[in-house]
Each structure stands twice: as C-alpha cells, then as structure tokens.
C-alpha cells in the first residue's frame, strides 16, 4: 500500500509552523543540497549505475557484479559485508557476483548510495556515524519480520537513515556542526533541523534516495520515519532501529516506549532481547566497512 502523499522535494513547506522560521541562508543550503543531489551521481558514476541496475528486473548478480567491478572500493565493501556474520556465510564469499547474491540487491544499492553520498569519508563531526547507522540497519532488519516487511529493505533503509546528516554537513559546513553539538539527543537535533531548514535530516535522506532513483516506496517510507502519526510498517521498522541504536550509543537518550513507536506490535522485552546480538553484529560490520 502506498500513501497518497508523495515525497515532495526539498521545498521547506511541510507545515505552516516551520515555514516562517527558515531564514535565507537555510534556503541557500537547501539549494546547495538540491544541486548536490544532482551533482553527486556524476562524481560516482559507477555507484549511480549500480543503483539504477538494482532496480532493473533484467539485472542479475552477474551483470550487477560486472558493473560493480568498475568501482573497486565499493566492490571491497560489498565483499566484506557479505563475509560478515550477519549474512551467516562468514569467510566463504570470494566472487563479487556471489557477494551480491549473498547480501542482496537492496544492500548493494544502499552501499552504492552511501558511496555516492561520500559516506566513505565521514566528516569528523558526525561522531560514531557508521556505528549508529549499522546498529539502526541491523536492528531494523531483525525486527522486520515481526512487522511484516522485508528485512533487506529495512536493513538498507536503516543504514541510510542518517545519510541526510552527511549531506547537511557538506552543504552547511558552518552551521550544521554547531547544530549537532548543541543538540542533547536525537530528538533535539531533529527539532533544531526543522527549525533551521524546515526539514529533518531523515527527510533529506529520503529526498536523496528519491533523487537517486531508489525505489519510490523505500524513499517514501523513509520520509515517514520522523513524521508524527501513522507510518508504513517499513518506516516503523526503521523507527525501531533508530530507537535501539540511540539507546545503545547515546547515554543521554531518553528511551521512547517501543510500543508507542510500533503501535503495540513490538514489546520492550523483544527489543531488550535484540540488544546484544544487534550490538555484536553491528560491531562486526563497522569493523569490516570502515577499516
């Protein structure tokens, strides 16, 4: 099922309250952001092609592997991830095309998007960016089945949910770090982002996905993550992932009852049970992807 409201671009008008507070420099940031979304694919053309091919029904692991092969750094990431404990085949994956088979197209696409957004060199101000992103991804993937969504989708969206932060640092290098530093926890950060730009970084992430030809429903789901009210199950899975990752990484984070986040589908006890395995798996991936 698809919600009637589409991803609407970066026009800072999701609500009347936000519109007024956006100043001129913020508008300029959004403009730069929009330009960046246009420019980045040209800078990583292989990644852009990989993204396009993952959505093409005619693609298979072999053809995708062939394309991927033109970007050795991205290939290495896919291979390392395929050999992580998460996919259960530790150490057995040698060929890129097989690695794609193992991690699935969705994850390959996410890695390509991450590469395109320049996440390989995460800005220093984004403290423990990959740790948080992978905790979110793993947790969202683990909870996916409970919510009736595909784990690979949840995993890849979880991984890219913070993508917008990197883009904001890139396009607003003066103010965004300050915004980050001032925010006590994720909630505060989202509020600050909304105040300054009229959008949250999650929303920016969603826009990037939409701009880069990610499947619409994934981008759409991501745009719902930090929006109040009902959300598609995939967005709920990412919410759970974000919540767990913040609980693990950020001691200042005030836990939000997971029952509220999931309309009662997931209970606190389940989240607690996930905590350790998620932490272990994510740590393994962080090591593989950032080394």
């Amino acid at each position, binding site marked *: 099922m*698809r*919600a*009637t*409201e*589409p*991803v*609407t*671009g970066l*026009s800072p008008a999701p609500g009347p309250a936000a519109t007024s507070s956006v100043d001129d420099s913020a508008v300029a940031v959004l403009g730069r952001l*929009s330009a960046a979304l246009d420019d980045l694919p040209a800078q990583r053309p292989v990644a852009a092609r990989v993204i*396009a091919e*993952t*959505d093409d*029904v005619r*693609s*298979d*692991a072999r053809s995708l592997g062939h394309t991927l092969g033109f970007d050795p750094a991205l290939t290495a990431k896919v291979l390392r991830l*395929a050999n992580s*404990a*998460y*996919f*259960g*085949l*530790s150490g*057995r*994956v040698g060929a890129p095309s*097989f690695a*794609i*088979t*193992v*991690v*699935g*197209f*969705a*994850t*390959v696409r996410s890695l390509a998007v991450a590469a395109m957004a320049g996440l390989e060199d995460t800005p220093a101000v984004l403290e423990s960016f990959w740790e948080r992103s992978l905790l979110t991804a793993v947790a969202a*993937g*683990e909870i*996916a*089945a*409970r919510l009736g969504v*595909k*784990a*690979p989708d949840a995993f890849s969206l979880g991984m890219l949910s913070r993508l917008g932060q990197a883009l904001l640092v890139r396009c607003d290098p003066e103010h965004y770090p300050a915004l980050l530093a001032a925010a006590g926890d994720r909630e505060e950060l989202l509020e600050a982002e909304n105040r300054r730009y009229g959008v949250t970084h999650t929303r920016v992430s969603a826009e990037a996905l*939409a*701009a880069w*030809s990610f*499947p*619409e429903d994934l981008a759409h789901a991501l745009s719902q993550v930090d929006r109040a009210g009902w959300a598609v199950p995939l967005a709920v899975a990412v919410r759970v992932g974000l919540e767990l990752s913040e609980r693990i990484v950020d001691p200042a984070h005030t836990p939000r009852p997971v029952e509220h986040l999931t309309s009662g589908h997931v209970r606190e006890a389940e989240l607690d049970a996930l905590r350790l395995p998620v932490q272990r798996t994510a740590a393994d991936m962080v090591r593989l992807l950032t080394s």
Partner: protein
Amino acid sequence: MELEAWRGRGDDLHPGVSAALLHLVGAGDQPVVVVSRPADGLPVEVPRIRWANAAAADLLGVAADHLVDLAVSRVLRGAGAASVLLHERSTRFAVQALTSAGSARSTEVVAWPVPLGTALSRPTHLRSAGAAPLGERPGSERTALEGEDYWVLQIALPSDERTSATLRAAEERFATLAQSSPVPTIVSDVGARLSHVNDAFAELLGVPADTLHGTGWLAHVPEEERAAVVQAVADVLDGHRTALDTRLCRADGQLRWVQLRLAPSRTPGYGAGFIATVEDVTERLARESRLAYQAQHDLLTGLPNRLALLEHLSALSAQQERPTRAGHGSGPGIGVLVVDLDDFKTVNDGLGPEAGDEVLVEVARRLSRTVRGADLVARPGGDEFVLVCHDLVDADAVAATARRVLDAVLAPVDVNGLRLRLGASVGVVLLPEPPGPPEELLRDAAIAVAEAKAAGGGRWQVLDDAVRRTARRTLRLIADLREAVARGALDVAYQPVVQPGRPAEVVGVEALVRWRHPEFGPVDPQTFVGLAERSNLVAALDAHVLTVALRDLARWRAGVAAGDLPHAPRWVAVNVSATTLSAPGFAEGVRRRVADAGLQLADVCLEVTETALATDLLACRTVLEGLRADGITVAVDDFGTGFSSLAYLKDLPVDHLKVDRSFVRDLHSSGDGPRGGPARAVAAAVVSLARTLGLGVVAEGVETLEQDAVLVELGCDYLQGYLYSRPVPADALVEVLRAGGTLQPQPAAPAPVSPVGSASVGPAPVSSAPRPATVPAPRQVPA
C-alpha cells in the same frame, strides 16, 4: 535520469517521428493524459487536461474531446495538488479516478514533467487522438507552450492492479501453504538469513519461530555440520538446487538427522534467496541403519555375515591394487583363515539346535578375542567362521595365528551343564598379488580347510601351490568323471573268487569299477570313487557297473550253453554303497536289470559294508530282505572294520561275511609263529562266529600260500586275492574261463594270472594297500 531522456532530444526531432510517437501513445493501452498549468506560479491556477488518449477516455468514461480543458482534479482526484507535480523529476502518487458514471477507483499516477523548451506539439492541437491528423506540423504552434508547464500523466492500468492483486493472492496462498505444511520449511530472502520459517520447522527445533529468523537458525546447526550447511546455502544462492543430510540440535539438546533440500528463489530487485524443506529423517535413518546392520551381520553371533565379508575382502583387494607400497617386495601379509568346527553336527544333533547356537556364540566370542583391531571375524554361515588377519608376514606369523585360533576353539565349552571339547580345521590363504576376486579367495580357503579335515581335523593347512594344484586337478577330475559316467566310459574289472583247492575253481567274480582318464591314464579307484561320492555320482556309477556285470555274466552263461566256454562263474558280486541302498527304487532297479539281462536274482551278490548297514539298519533290512527272499545273496564287506555290535549281527539279512584284508595281511606278517599269532585268533573268531550264525565266509586279500593255508585250515568257504588273480578285464577273465575256470596259486607273481590282464587294469597296488576305514573301497552297486 529520466529527465535526460526527455531533454535535448526533441529539438531536432523529425516531424514524422513525433507523429509516430504520438500515434503510439494515442493508440496504446496505457491511459495517458497531458496536463499543464501556467508557469508563472500563480497558485490558484489548477493544472488542466490538454490532451488525453483513447485509453484514458475509456477509463474515465468521457470522450477525449470533452476531457480537454477540464481541471485534472475533476477526473483524477489528488493529481491537482501543487505538491505532486514537480519540475525537477518524475513523481508517483495515488489518485482516485472519477468516472462519468460517478464511481471512484483508487489507482496510481506517474507524472513526468516536460522540460521547458521541448519542441512538443501544442497539446490542444490533439483534440482527439484517434482522429487527429497526425502529420500536421507542430512547429507553428510552438508559442502556445510558452507560459505553461506541462506534465505527462501515466495512469496505472486496472489490469496492472489485477495482475499485482493476483500475484499478491498467489503469494499469500503460498505463504498459507508453507505455514500450515507439516514439512518444516524455511525461506531466505537474502543470503543465509531467513525471512520466514513455518510452524513445523519451529516445532522440529522446539523453539518459537521468530528466534529462527535472520541467522538465528544457524545456531541450531552443530559446529561440525556448519561448514557443510553454509556451503550448501552458498551453492543454492549461486543458483544450484542442493540437498544434504545434516543434523540439527533441538532446544532440548537432542540431535535430529535432517535432510535439507534447498531450491534457489530469485526476487527481481532483491537478488537471490532460497526455499528449503527440512525433513526429519532420524527415525528413517535409524530404521535403515538397523536394516543395513541386519543385512551385514549374522544375527546369532553379531559377527559380519558373508555379504559383509565379501565386501571387506573386495575393499582390501582394491586397496592392495593401488600401488601404495611401491618398492615393497612382499604384500602386506593379509591372510584369510577359514575355521570349520569338526563334528559340530554331532553337537547340534545330540544336544539340540539351541545348544549348537550356544556353542557358535561362544566360539564367535573367542575368535573375536584372538584378533587385533583391523582384523575381521565373520560368520558366513553354518559352523564356519572366517578371519581376515593382517601382518601375516611369514610362515611363523601364520602358524602363530592359526595356533591361536585352534587353541581358542579347543578350550572346553560348557553347554547345558556338559563340558564339550570341540575341534576345528583351519584353512589359510594368503592374499595373492594381484588379488583375485573374494569368492575365489574363499573357495581356496575352503579347499585348504578340506585338506585339513581330510588330514584328520584339529589342524591347520595353508593353501600352497601344491595343494592348489591338487585341488584344481580334483575339480577337473570331477568334471571328467561326470562326463565318463554319462557316456558309460568306465571299465569294469573282475576279481575271481575261488573255492580252495588245487587247482582252485572260480565260483564267483567281484565286479570292480576302473577308470582310464584320457589324459592322466588310469585313475586310482580310491580317488575317483571318493570324488563320485562327493559329487553325487555314486548311484550312476553303481548302476553302470551292475548293468555291465550282468551283461558280461549273461554272455559267459550263453558261452557255456553254446559250448564255447567250459565254465562260468556262479555269481557276480557288486558293491552297494549306503546311499545307493537307501535310494528310492533301488530294489526295483536291481530286479529290472537282472531281468533285462535274462538272469536270476540268485546270480547276484550284493556286497554291503558293515558301516553302510549300520547307518540305516531298518531301511537296509527292508530292502535287502525283499531281495533275499527272491534269491539274491548279501555279503557284509570289510567285516571287522566297522563298529557293528555282534548283538545285532544275527539280525542282519546277510548270507556271507567277507573277512577284511587287514586280518588276512596280519596272518602273513605275524612273527609269533609260522601260522600267525593273535591275528590268527581273530580270524579264527570271525570264521567261527560266521559259522555259528550260519553264514558263509569269504577271505579277501589273500596274497601268500601261508595265508591261504591258514584260511583253508580255519574253514573259509571262499578265497579272493592276488595269490589267485588280480582284478582283470572281462576278456582276460574269459581266457581263464576258457581254460577251464580254475586257477593255481601264484604267490610271487608281480602280474595277474592272466597273460593279458595287466594292460587295462588300474594302477599298481590298489588292492594290496590296507584301506582306511573312512575311504570306501572300490565297488559297484545296482541302482
């Protein structure tokens, strides 16, 4: 990216191409409308339809002409919002399609912005896609584009919805099926991570289903199996259907054997996953392994059976054939020992089969203790055991092993409160190089056992080349003998039985079978009669001799009647084995042959050994009494060598006793006096016994005048032996008869009395050698 496709292509587009594209869209199944709104951004202006194709008109139930200039939100609710139509890129959103009939239908729209400056025809020009003159040049209307932003709206077809609904339904059916299937089923959507497991799988492992999602299920694969399982998963993800037997650990710690069958499944846009069924085969395997055990083991002793033994030997042969020991002169010294219990039948018959089984179990246990780890003890059947032993590098090692085996069997066994002492014969064969078929090995070992048994049992025999040669020759002889019997190619020789006197009158003849092998020459009668007994040829042999002997006697009688011969024997004696005697139809056979030859039963004497009589006294008595009543005479052959008791001797239906040659020989060799010592007393006792019972006495093996004199003095009725004549061919006997039918004793004579006899008679001193009791004397019998 889509924008790229639109941008910059239209400027120099040939009008024919635009017309063709327009025609395609106009005639296509996909509902398409083109909308525009003023570009100056006045928010109050709503997008209006500028063109619609026939499919869109059909969907909305309004003629294409009437759609033009309508606000798009009038027919596609939700498509008019400023937020859904973007300049930057295509958007996809849900709308309600409102038809003229008033119904609303949820569908989706993809909106493609038309880049500014694109040389498209002015949409108003295209009022009716079906009827518009397509070739019209659009360039002239170009200015109409200015000030308007255009979008092309593709409306999802209802049939697309149906297709996806059908797919969803199929998916749900599959999910329901898998969920309720009794076969444990798992579904991966990526890598080894499971997205779905059914209840049966969760039940198999005894845990809630959701703990098995992701890689959780791998925790139930035991460490030592994990590599194989992961490899199988890798294979299936690579597109190969795979199956493997492995184990899974239940929550309660119990290990279950399962068969994992994995089939690849590929979801476009997701990559590869798999669907697998996990069949619990623990019970089946247990049953199969039980059956396999039973197929390979002797159920009484638990030892490997014949099949397992043959497989073991085959494996050893295969191993040995591989040149692993290059440069090593001798083989690895593998020996096959066949252990055959001596007299086991006695135990079985005497104490019952249960006792026999107990003995076998005990022997099996002891034999198993005598061998080392890599060695094998098998029971191929009956009272036979086979050991396959390694490291029999030299004769000493073979001897030590064989000795150990014999000792193990010889130790007393307690059964039913009785202490039994068993014996065994052991045949040993060393694995030759190159190794032959296992069956041949076992046959060779059986030959060695037979040799050991023939040598008296309780010993072991290695099958060396000499033994093997003998055995091969034996097999050849049996085959040739069978053929000779079938062809009637056996000769009959006659040894005269005389009444004492000077000269001695020939009163009867004993018919003796002789065989001249076409290649080996004359074959020792002891040898081939033994072979005949082993190969069930005795009856045929006996029948042949009786027929020939009766024919010859009839001819001699005819010769006398015709005046050609002055004398003919009063009877012909033929030997009858116990087998022949107890065969059904024996008496009738004799009567028929006698009648066929035109003779009387009184012309025939049946010679039966004491042992044969003792074997089945009652049956023998019935048969023999019947024949005796009609005049046949019966002689007890080899009297004194058996163990028949004097008590029933008086009941035997016999007419003569034939004193065994061993008593006669001792009369000759005794040093206690000129006329024998204790031997004479024995002979005297036999003769006197016969007299008491009213039986006639025939002495066999008379070779010297001294023996002759003693026997005559003791009162023997008839004499038979080299002193008078060796067994001779029929024509040589005819010469004797022609000469009057009398013989003079010739003590030192190396050749038979007859001048022609030596040529066709068997090899040298057959009848002079004392015959062991176990080997039957040459004889012939009617059948």
